[in-house]
Structures are given as structure tokens and as C-alpha cells.
């Protein structure tokens, strides 16, 4: 590899490997774990120091379902969304792209769930931008080699419009409206919507609590054979 277009060469991919073990501040927990947890992590017995070995450790290929070519293509497409000054390799890996740019990608433009996808994969505190690693996560889940398990997990999160961990009637109603569109002739009437949601809950809500949780969702999805092939985005 290492053609003229790709700037994430093998060495750069290898940069993502562990160079020894990081100190507490550099612990790659990122901003996600709370400070208390970071303290806890800092207080743990550290694994023995290892000398940096470029060949050891992992690369993006082991953390995602994407092949090397796909990662490089993703990096290229991601850099096209960045302003000129941020397009160097180091800054592109730390840059955050606001949602408007991501939503202008042709693969996502026509998708009724595009905002939800961006929100689910975003790790920024304000949840308004995606980093390159978030972008890779997105592509990894939507690649065709991803397991149905992880796809259904993320599908659940995407369909959970109010982020409360379950699909209640509101979520289902918004989901159906996204699917059928807002046109006059395609919208379901209120009675049809109620009937549809009643049917869905009757079929999938095993514990009869009025909402669908993750395991019920995964159970229902497993009965649909073409879920994995339709839950796919390829650059």
C-alpha cells in the first residue's frame, strides 16, 4: 500500500499500537470514563513495562471489521471533509468534524436515520461532531463483515430516539414515521399507527412492560434473515 492517495501508511497505522503502557494521564480512556474511574485505573497495578515494538500490539484492523484498504479509503474520505489546514495525518486523527459535514456524505444523505447515526457514534461531550475513530467505528459496524450481534445492538441504539435504553411507543412511532416518510399519501393515519405499534409490541414485548429492550429487540431481529444485508453502508 502507501500509494499516493493514502497517507495512513503502514508505519502510521502501526503508530496506533501500544508504545509501552501509558501513564495515568495518557491512559486511553479518553473523556468517557469519569475522573473517579480514571483514578481507579491509575491506582491499579500496572502491567509490566514492555519495550515499544512496532510489530506488536494492534492496529485499526484488529479493532474494527474493516480491511486495510477500507480504513485507508475511510481516512481519505474523512480528510476531504476537513478544512485544508487540518488535513495532515496527526491533526486529522484528532480533528472533530461537525455533523453538517458528515451528513453531506452521499452515503448518508438520503438516510432518514442520519442524525441518529451521528449522535450514536459521536464520543464528543456535546455530541455534535465525529472524530476519525468514531467514523471508523461507524463504518465498522455498518460493514458487511460485522456480526449480526453488534449490528442489532447499534440498530437498537439508533432507533432509540430518546436514548433511554428502551423502545417505547414514542420511539416506535417516530421510527415508523421515518420509514414511511412525511408525504401525505405515505403517512400512516393515527389509527393505523396505533394498530401497527400494538402489533409490534404484541409480537416483540415478551415481558409485557410496554417497551422493547435490547434482548427482545435482538430476538425479533434474529427472525428476519435480511437484516444484516440491509444494515450496511459501504463507502
Amino acid at each position, binding site marked *: 500500500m502507501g500509494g499516493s492517495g493514502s497517507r495512513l501508511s503502514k508505519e502510521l497505522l502501526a503508530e496506533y499500537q*501500544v508504545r509501552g503502557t501509558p501513564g495515568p494521564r495518557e491512559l486511553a480512556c479518553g473523556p468517557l470514563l469519569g475522573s473517579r474511574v480514571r483514578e481507579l485505573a491509575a491506582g491499579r497495578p500496572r502491567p509490566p513495562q514492555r519495550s515499544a515494538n512496532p510489530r506488536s500490539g494492534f492496529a485499526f484492523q484488529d*479493532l474494527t471489521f474493516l480491511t486495510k484498504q477500507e480504513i485507508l479509503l475511510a481516512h481519505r474520505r474523512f480528510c476531504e471533509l476537513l478544512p485544508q489546514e487540518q488535513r495532515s495525518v496527526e491533526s486529522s486523527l484528532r480533528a472533530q468534524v461537525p455533523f453538517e459535514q458528515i451528513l453531506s456524505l452521499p452515503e448518508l444523505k438520503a438516510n432518514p436515520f442520519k442524525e441518529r447515526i451521528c449522535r450514536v457514534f459521536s464520543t464528543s461531550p456535546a455530541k455534535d461532531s465525529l472524530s476519525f475513530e468514531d467514523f471508523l467505528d461507524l463504518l465498522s459496524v455498518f460493514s458487511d463483515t460485522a456480526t449480526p450481534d453488534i449490528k442489532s445492538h447499534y440498530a437498537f441504539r439508533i432507533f432509540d430516539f430518546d436514548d433511554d435504553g428502551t423502545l417505547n411507543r414514542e420511539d416506535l412511532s417516530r421510527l415508523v414515521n421515518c420509514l414511511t416518510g412525511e408525504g401525505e399519501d405515505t403517512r400512516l393515519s393515527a389509527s393505523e399507527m396505533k394498530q401497527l405499534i400494538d402489533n409490534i409490541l404484541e409480537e416483540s414485548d415478551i415481558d409485557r412492560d410496554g417497551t422493547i429492550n435490547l434482548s427482545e429487540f435482538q430476538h425479533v431481529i434474529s427472525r428476519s434473515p435480511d437484516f444484516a444485508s440491509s444494515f450496511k453502508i459501504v463507502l
Partner: protein
Amino acid sequence: MLLPRSVSSERAPGVPEPEELWEAEMERLRGSGTPVRGLPYAMMDKRLIWQLREPAGVQTLRWQRWQRRRQTVERRLREAAQRLARGLGLWEGALYEIGGLFGTGIRSYFTFLRFLLLLNLLSLLLTASFVLLPLVWLRPPDPGPTLNLTLQCPGSRQSQPGVLRFHNQLWHVLTGRAFTNTYLFYGAYRVGPESSSVYSIRLAYLLSPLACLLLCFCGTLRRMVKGLPQKTLLGQGYQAPLSAKVFSSWDFCIRVQEAATIKKHEISNEFKVELEEGRRFQLMQQQTRAQTACHLLSYLRVNILIGLLVVGAISAIFWATKYSQDNKEESLFLLLQYLPPGVIALVNFLGPLLFTFLVQLENYPPNTEVNLTLIWCVVLKLASLGMFSVSLGQTILCIGRDKSSCESYGYNVCDYQCWENSVGEELYKLSIFNFLLTVAFAFLVTLPRRLLVDRFSGRFWAWLEREEFLVPKNVLDIVAGQTVTWMGLFYCPLLPLLNSVFLFLTFYIKKYTLLKNSRASSRPFRASSSTFFFQLVLLLGLLLAAVPLGYVVSSIHSSWNCGLFTNYSAPWQVVPELVALGLPPIGQRALHYLGSHAFSFPLLILLSLVLTVCISQTQANARAIHRLRKQLVWQVQEKWHLVEDLSRLLPEPGPSDSPGPKYPASQASRPQSFCPGFPCPGSPGPQAPRPGPFVVDAAGLRSPCPGQHGAPASARRFRFPSGAEL
């Protein structure tokens, strides 16, 4: 995401601390066998987990990566091959668009049209390869000038009064006179007398219509069987669950806005049809017996009414034909000659409208409406076609009339020198007329209607609306066209070519009409049972075409001075002659035996045996399905029995002030999740902490992770699917 929410110091006793949760979670993730890439966490967290798992930094084996790549490549090749096989079908893109925007019901009309095109092309291929190519290749010598027959015709052969004759080139093309001496019609085929060593064009010409009809019969039957309504066999509960459809129906690969619109329409139609069927099913189940009887009676009433109308229409046509024949000498003959076609056209115009109106009054499910209207329209149309061929038979072959002019040669020699050509011309004219009518309706009725309705906005125009695309009427048109083609196979062997061209053009005309000038039906119907009914009416047409063909081929004398069968008493007589010429005696005896009664009775008995075996196998399968359903019910009951037992065994929870609803106790073993809101993937951990009451903190442990405690009483809320439901 690994998100502990709040680290509030006052914590209700029994609730695990975040760090304990984190510990437990990390232990679980470290020990679990799922590869890191399959964990639903962000990249940074996956890296952390990877570090915890493999601090030594084990390198992924190269061959594992290679194997993954190989599997991916294989799968992609397979998918590409499937896509190619689907895409090779004609008009796939247009059919997808039509199906998406207007529903599978209307799409089934276009699929049927494509099927008919295929049948016509196959018939053409058969005829061309067995008759035309050898004829052109072998160039058999012309048998010489025709016999000079002495005719004793009543009166002189003057042109019939009132029949207009144009000498226009276009008129000749439209009536077929321009092609009289080409291979389009029967008359142009000439060969010498039969001999055993040469390829027998006569036999090929005789057998190719029969072979075409047989091929079309088998193809139609096969398609009909595929479309057999399966619902009655399997029952309502064995379709794909609606919830799975809702969750997996969006195709995330769609990039183009138009494709997205089409997909949204498709999804909306699908949901509406499903919901409508569900509502009907509910209504039907709630019907009392009196209501069911009432429903059946109304069904019977509609059918009887329409049947009577059809009988009335047929007798009107019959009477009109008879009247015009009987009063041939009247001065108004010009008008009377056009009475039968006029009555036929009127009947075929009013009939479908009337039937549609009557059936729509009854408020049947959309599928039943379409199928019922279709069957009656087709019966009417085929009856008119039947009357047409009977009247042809009367004039040309003196069937059912006084046989004075037909006595000498078996057909009306005075008026028709080459009667097969005349019949071929009539059928050719009918075929062209049908197509021109389709085109005229599309461009002279539907298009102006759309233009006027769109332009003006009065109450009348709002009421008139764009034309609705009526599937029964359109299917009727192409079935009638196909029946005419089949009727004409013997007289006009290249009629399938003509029909193929017409069908090809009809597809684009109808597609244009549908997409631009029509409105969607307010009651979309499913394609599943339509497939069956379309093939059924096609079979009716095929039977109607096969009967006159069989009669003519076996009993009617061919023309004396044109065509292939001039010296035979009936075209079928070629076969015995060739058998006597060509086959050795033992072959002749074998064939003779095959055609005799001594063979057909044992064959019949054998076929009855096979049929009995098939029927009993079907019944055994139905019994097996019933038994399997019962087993499923028992298994589900066993499962819930175990759930109850488990909930009885687990310790009872304390006074719970959890606002959440109760859950089955089987999920109590799931640890209170470290990631509230998103139950962590994987199975519950090895230690099942005591389920404690929840506290909804102000700072925010959010809604309880499902899987908390539940009382045994909750198990009783669960519905055992009863045997009656399945």
C-alpha cells in the same frame, strides 16, 4: 460506551458502587471470548479493553487475517453473482420502480406482461427453427400450378354489396392483404409431396402450433402452481412477523433521494396492506355465524347477478350475429354487417365497468375484488371471442348452416379461395385492432383527461380525477390479445412475432400511463393471489384457442389451391401417411398401439394411482404440520413453567419502591448494569449480585436496566400461547 453516571455519596444500601461495577464489567470483558472488534464500545474503550486483555501485545496471526479476507471476498463474489442473475431479467429497474411507487399488485400486471412476452418469443423460436429455417434452407420445389377447379357458384362473383375497398397501401398493411403471399400467412407455404428421407415441413408445420400450445400450457401451469395461495395451508401466524419487518425494512445502502422516496412508498404500502389484512382478519374472526352466512349469501348473490349479465350479453351477441346473417338481402345490409362487431364492442366496453361497479358495492377485500372482476371480465371477453370464431366458422365452413355451398369441397369455395388466409387475415386484423385500441385509449382518453384535470379546477374536474389504473381491465386486454394469437397459430404462424412487438410497446405505453397519467389506487392489493388468477384466466384463453384448432386440424378439409395440405382430407392425415412411409413396421405397430384404447385405459388408471398417492401425501403433510404446531405450543409452555419454577426458587425481594414495572425473575440474575440504559452485551456475569431496590437518583442513574427483580406473581402475566391460536 462505558458511562458511569453519578458518583453520589449517599447511595442506598445494596446498590453496587460504580467501581465495583467497573471491576465486574472489566473482568467480564477480559474473560469473554468475543473478539474486541465485536464489542459495542467506542474505539478508545476497545483499545483499553484490548490492553487489559493482551498486555503482552500478541500479534494477530497473519493467517487469521488472511482467512477473514478470503471469507469476505467469497461472500462479496456470491452477492455480486446474485445481483447479476437478478439484473439480467428484462426491465428489472422499471419493475422495481413501479413496485415501489404503486405496490406489488400493480407490479404483478407488468410481470405478467413480461411473462407473456417470453412465451411469445419462445413460440416464435419454435416455429422459426422447425418450420421457417428448414423451409429456407432446403428450398423445396414448388409443386407446380394449382388445379383448375370448376366452380359452380351461385351468381357471379361480384363484390359484396356495401363492403368498402380502399386501395391504400396503409389499409392493405392494416388488413393483411399486403402480406398475403409472404410467410406470414398459411397460403405461402408450399412443398412437394411427402417422402420419407426428406425433413417433412408439413409435419413440422402441423405440430408446431400444437407444441407451442403445449409449451405455453406447461409454463402457465408451473407459474400458477407457484402462485397458489399458501395462506390457507399454513395459517395466519406463520408469516414474517410485522415487527421484524418494521425493524429491518430500511435499506441503508440507498444513496439517491429518488430511490429513498420509492423505498418509503414501498414500505408505506406494505404496512398499509398488512394492517388492512389484519383488520379484516379480526373482523372475520369476530363475526357471528349469522353474519358469516349473510356474507356468503351476498357473495353468491353478486356472482349470480354478474353471471346473469354475462349470459344476457352472450345471447345479445348471438342474436345480433344471427339477425345480421339472416337478413343479408336487406337494403340496410351495410349497417347490419357491422351489428355483430358493434354489439361485441359495446358489451366489452360496458361489461367491465358494470362488473367493477357491482363488485365494489360489496366492500370485499381488495384481492377478492380484483380477482372476481377479472374472472367475469375474462369470461365475457372469451365468450365474445368464441362467438366470433363460431361466426367465422359459419361463413367459411358452413357450420350450422345450410351446406349447399360447402358440399363439394368441404368449405365455402365460392367466396374464399384460400380460406385459411382469410381466417388468418381476420385474426391479424383483430390483433392489430386491439393494439391500436390500447394506444388510442392511452393517448386519446387518459392523457387528455390528465391534462384537463390538472389544468382546470372546477368541481367537475375535481370529481373526475385522473384515471385509476385498473388492473383487471388491463390484464383482460393482454389475455384477449394472447388468445387471439394462439387461435391464429395455424393460419398465421408469425403472429407471435407481431404479438411480441405489441407486448413490448404495450409495456412502455402502460408504464408511461401509470407513472404520468394515473393515480394510485386507494386500496392496494397484494400480488400473491393475483399471480394465480392471472395464470388461470390465461389457461382459459388457451383452452378456448385449442378447441377450434383441434377441430380444424382433425376434421376440416384444407384449401385445394393454397398451402401445405392441399391433397389431404384433413391436415392431421399427414401423420398416418408419414408413419406409414417413414417408420419401420414395428414402429408403426407401436404407434398404433399407443393411439388405441388398449393403451389409454391403463394409462388413465396409472395416472389415477399417482394422483391418489399425491393426495394422500398432502394429507399426511398437513397432519404433520398440525402435530408440529402442537409441539411448539407445548415447548413454549414448558419454558414458562421453568420460568415460574425459577422465580419461586429465587429469594423474594424486599419492599420495593422501584417505579419500574415488574420483570420476570429469570432476568434477575443479570447484574445491575455498569452501562445503564444499554444492557451490556454478553451473558450475565458469574456472580449474580443480590437484586436490590432501585433508586432513581436526582443526578441520574436513569431508568432501571431491565432485568431487575420480579415477583413470581409477575410470571402469571405472561400469556401462554394457546393451541387455538396456532
